[in-house]
C-alpha cells in the first residue's frame, strides 16, 4: 500500500560535474530494494545460534569479523563475534523464516532494513574520495575486495563493503544519510562525479 521512501530521495536527481581535469572519476548512487536483518546471539548461545544459521543456510559461516558470505542474492556479514547482518532483496521471506527458526531464547533477530541507507561509490577516484573521510587503509592488499568494515564517516557510523577493486558500498545511518551524501558529493568535486539514478543495483 505504501511505497518505501529513501532518506536521500530528494538529492537523487541524476546529474554530474566534471572534475578539475575534465573527467568524472566517481559514480555515486543509492541502492534500494533490499532488506537488512541483524541476528545476534546472547552471552551463552553463540554455538547454538551458529548451528541454527548453518542449518538454515546450509553453508559454512564466516569465521572472522569483517568477512562476508555470498550465496546467490543473499549476503551474510559477520559483524561481531556472535552477530551477523544479512542483506537480501526485499520481499524475500527469509526474515519471516528467521524469526520462526531462531528461537527467541537463542538469538535476537532485528530488522534494520529502514535504518540504513546504502550508497554505492565506484570509479578510479573512489578510494581517494573515501580516504578523505574514512580512517582506514583502503589499499587493495589491506582492505581486500569482498570484505567489509564497521567504521566512521563524517562523524557517523558506517559499514563499508568493498564489492570490487574500485567499488564500495556504504551503509550509512538513515537519519544521517543525507548529510553523508552531501559530504560525499562535496568531497567528489575535484575528481568529477556522476550521480546515477536510484535502483536495485544503480551502477550495474
Amino acid at each position, binding site marked *: 500500500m505504501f511505497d518505501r521512501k529513501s532518506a536521500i530521495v530528494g538529492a537523487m536527481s541524476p546529474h554530474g560535474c566534471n572534475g578539475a581535469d575534465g573527467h568524472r572519476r566517481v559514480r555515486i548512487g543509492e541502492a534500494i530494494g533490499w532488506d537488512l536483518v541483524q541476528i545476534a546471539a546472547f*552471552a551463552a548461545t553463540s554455538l547454538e545460534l551458529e548451528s541454527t544459521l548453518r542449518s538454515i543456510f546450509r553453508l559454512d559461516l564466516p569465521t572472522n*569479523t*569483517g568477512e562476508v558470505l555470498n550465496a546467490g542474492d543473499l549476503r551474510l556479514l559477520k*559483524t*561481531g*563475534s556472535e552477530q551477523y547482518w544479512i542483506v537480501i532483496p526485499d520481499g524475500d521471506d527469509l526474515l519471516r523464516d528467521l524469526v520462526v527458526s531462531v528461537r527467541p531464547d537463542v538469538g535476537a533477530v532485528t530488522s534494520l532494513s529502514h535504518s540504513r541507507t546504502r550508497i554505492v561509490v565506484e570509479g578510479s577516484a573512489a578510494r581517494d574520495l573515501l580516504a578523505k573521510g574514512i*580512517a*582506514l587503509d583502503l589499499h587493495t592488499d589491506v582492505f581486500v575486495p569482498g570484505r567489509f*568494515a*564497521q*567504521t*566512521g564517516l563524517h562523524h*557517523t*557510523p558506517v559499514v563499508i563493503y568493498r564489492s570490487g577493486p574500485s567499488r564500495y558500498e556504504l551503509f550509512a545511518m538513515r537519519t544521517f544519510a543525507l548529510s553523508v551524501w552531501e559530504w560525499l558529493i562535496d568531497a567528489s568535486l575535484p575528481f568529477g562525479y556522476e550521480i546515477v539514478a536510484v535502483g536495485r543495483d544503480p551502477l550495474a
Partner: protein
Amino acid sequence: MCPICGERDYTEFRYGGDATKPRPSRETADPKVWHDYVFLFDNPKGLHREYWQHVLGCRQWLVLERNTATNEPGESRLARMDVVTCEGEPK
C-alpha cells in the same frame, strides 16, 4: 586497537573510565563501597587499564592497557573476557 576490528583510528573510540576497579555486586548495600567505586580513583603513572568502547565500529567495550606516561598502548581485550570482578562473587 580493537580485538574484533583490528587497528583503528582513535577517533572511533570513546573513553569509559578506570578498568582496574571491580564493580560492586548489585546487592551491595554498603554506601561506602559504592562511594569508593564511583568517586575514588588512583592516578597511576605508567601502565594502566582503561575501558574504551569502539563506538564507531563494533560497539564492543574493551579493556586497553595504556602507559599513562608515554601514551603507549598495550594489549587490548574484549571487556567481557577481561573484566575484574569482585572477589568471591560468581561471574
